[in-house]
């Protein structure tokens, strides 16, 4: 099952849990499932995060397909100079 | 209010030109707006960045600090006048080959200042180059490739004059 890795400020929605196993074939499905379980978290992940999967950071990752054992790291979105 | 304008006659890049300008116009604005020579840039308007550098009677000046009528009778060279026709000045060529420009906004001023330096001192030390160019700010290059390109142009110019 994919694992969602949350940054510390996401964890106030999850009673401090940092890694959560979630079903989903896309990052968007993972977020939807997390929102079901932890209301409010989904909005934060959708608007305030990028997702790192297999070492690659994706901006707006909602439709990114993930494997059954994927590690999805929700990280702050980056801008540059 | 009617603005009166002064008639100014001078030589720019080898051509005798004349233009009209209000007395409080900077020479930089007159060159850019009246003569269409936009090579010299305004980076600060206070003489602190050198992007507007031009040669006036062979000497480097900030054109933003000159009143347009001060140009009367003088011989002015801007970056547009450094090349001989299609033949780039060695400084222009070494700047290109040495990647001495990134964004290019400061480049016209540097070329003019460097030309003034090499016209007077054909074999400057690195320190002399750095101080001679201290009135020209570049925020892209850290000056390394500019200084090296001036050094290379100096070598070429000395070789050519031998």
């Amino acid at each position, binding site marked *: 099952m994919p694992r969602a890795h949350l940054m510390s*400020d996401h964890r106030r929605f999850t009673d401090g849990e940092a890694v959560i196993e979630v079903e989903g074939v896309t990052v968007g499905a993972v977020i939807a499932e997390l929102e079901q379980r932890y209301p409010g978290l989904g909005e934060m992940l959708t608007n305030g995060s990028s997702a790192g999967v297999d070492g690659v950071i994706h901006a707006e990752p909602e439709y990114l397909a993930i494997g059954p054992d994927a590690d999805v790291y929700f990280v702050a979105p980056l801008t540059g100079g | 209010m009617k603005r009166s304008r002064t008639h100014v006659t001078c030589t720019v890049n080898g051509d005798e030109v004349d233009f009209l300008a209000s007395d409080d116009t900077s020479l930089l604005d007159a060159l850019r707006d009246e003569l269409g020579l936009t090579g010299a840039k305004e980076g600060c308007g206070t003489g602190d960045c050198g992007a507007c550098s031009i040669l006036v009677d062979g000497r480097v000046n900030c054109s933003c600090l000159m009143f347009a009528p001060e140009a009367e009778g003088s011989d002015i060279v801007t970056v547009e006048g450094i090349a001989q026709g299609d033949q780039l000045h060695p400084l222009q060529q070494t700047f290109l080959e040495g990647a001495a420009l990134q964004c290019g906004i400061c480049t016209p001023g540097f070329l003019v200042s460097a030309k003034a330096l090499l016209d007077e001192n054909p074999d400057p030390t690195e320190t002399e180059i750095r101080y001679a160019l201290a009135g020209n700010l570049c925020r892209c290059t850290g000056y390394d490739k500019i200084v090296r390109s001036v050094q290379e142009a100096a070598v070429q110019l000395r070789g050519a004059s031998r």
Partner: protein
Amino acid sequence: MTVTEDRPAYKWVGTRPIRHDGYDKVVGKARFAADLNLPGQLHGVFLRSPHGHARIVSIDTSTAEAMPGVKAVVTGDDFPALAAGHPERDTAINLMARGVVLYVGHALAAVAASTRAEAAAAAAAIEVEYDLLPVILSLDESMADGSPLVNEDNRTAFSGSDEPSNLASVTPLERGDVDAAFEAADLVIEREFETSWVHQGYIEPHACVVDVGADGKADIWASSQGHFRVRSQTAAVLDWDTARIKVTPAEIGGGFGGKTTIYLEPVAARLSEKSGRPVKIVMTREEVLRATGPAPGSKARIRIGATSDGELTAIEGWIGYIVGCVNNMAGFIGAMSLASYKFPNLKLEAVGVLTNTPATAAYRAPSAPQAAFAVESVIDEIAQTLGLDPIDLRLKNAVVEGDPTAMGMPHPRIGFVECLEAIRDSDHYGSPVPDGAARGIGTGFWFNIGEQSSATVNLNEDGTATVITGSPDIGGSRASMALMAAEELGIDVHRITPVVADTESVGFTDVTEGSRATFATGMAVVNACRELVDELKARAATIMGVDSEAVDWIDGAAVAEEHDPLPLDAITAKAKGTGGPLTVTASLNAGGAGPSFAVHCCDVAVDEETGQVTVLRYTTAQDAGTAIHPSYVEGQMQGGTAQGIGWALNEEYVYSEDGTMLNASFLDYRVPVASDLPMIETIIVEVPNPAHPYGVRGVGETGIVPPLATIANAVNRATGLRISALPMSPPAILAALNER
């Protein structure tokens, strides 16, 4: 000098041709935004707030409107109010105050007149009544209990709270158990640090020309790192359809992050719309310093634990970024920039804090220099205290592929160790420290970003090519695009013309920022070229009468058994008869930007009687992945380093108590001049990024990260002073020496 991992042999990639846009730039022909003039053009000038924070009771423009030459006057009332939460609401407010001015220099009206002098005179004649509000200028004041609000509009991002706040964001990051680790550590060092705001200092002030026609369509010529963002932000601020706006990128005279947002265009557009004439606005240098940029100032407290043999076991850190008058992401990003070592235990918090100062903007590797200054200073002190070589200590703890980033995700393949080794093995590090000098080491990194890019490659009938992208070229990227296209197509790089096209002539492309142009736009170019090569093989197959599968593309020619190679120009010459024009467009949202690490080494001398620091020698090693055009990679490394040296030594914002910047000129905002710097020696390390077809990482950001600590560490070794506040200006150093 270059340190390169094994990689394929390239013909064009890695060479140093003269850049395509270079000729125009050395003869004065290159057109920057302020160089453009349109018939009938008016000049726009802003009225800016003289107060640091005030309610606007009334604005009377009647006198100004009646003045000579004046054709239009606008105020905040001329712009739609964007709803709370609208992503461009802060941009809109910063462009033109609505009801409240938030800093000295905040625009609150603008005039278009026949001459700039007339516009300036009219702007000065606008009468404004203000009701003064408290002015908050420092992080401590802003965070104090009961502090007045900097900006009633601000809510702390993702806090879930709808209460106004002076906090922009709070980002905690944590792993392991720092308390236990500090308990077990042989050495724990904790220090506090402070840095000033610094400006990007591009030499070209912001400028635009906007012409709104009677049909409502707007033509914009802008100096911007991203003309598609100019379009989208202008559309949002004016509530216009995007299709009404065409933005043509002028040559851009430096940006460094400071031209990733807009300050002028919607105002010029409204003035043009009202007057029916084109309007040009060019900022003065003073306006640039008072009302654009800067990078956030910061305060940090960093605590690091180590074993006696130099294993770093824990980091606990707090860093506050002073983001200015509106919210931004500085704190989020800063949190992630704090850890480039294998700390098994980590507890970090980064916050963004508002003040009544200009809205801060990105500046090369945003938020990372402040963080690296703090962390690398403490790391250096640990090395000194333990008697370890500063590079050996870092090598022992440097992150490698698979080690977690600060936010937990494993690093992809990175070149930190390779950069450390490159400096360790360099001529500079191997040379004795000169008499009277001292040597410092510092490191830094930046994640880099990908984002969206488009490229169109047209093959012309004679076999030349045009590469069209939407990435404004701020440091030589056109040459890099041409080099990658030359490599793919197998033709001479100077038979390729790289072009940055307007918003109607190329697909959407995100801003040139985060070192993404050569990486992401380069990928789009490569993808387009590869598709073109497939098409060329198909056309060649038609011409040769063979199956397209039988055709290879080798060195710019189609090759099939029993046929003479068919060069590209022979195929393009027959394009009409084989299927029409040869053109391909590729677009993508690039993932996989590779972090770029850098390690710096410098020698300084300190005049202990005046406090003056002189940089005697400087060497930088940075992982470029693959250097497409090494000269411009070196240029990015050198330019970033010089900016970092300025940040370290002399650049700062000096404010009066009422929030007026006192040094708003290039005379007193002291960017380094040529005589301040030595040559900046470069070592390009090439650890290819597996996510890019040529291994590009992007090199623009990282160079500015290490110099702050590198110089501070050298100053420490010269004087024994552990400098905690930047800049290390002569008065600051002398004061510290006096207390030593």
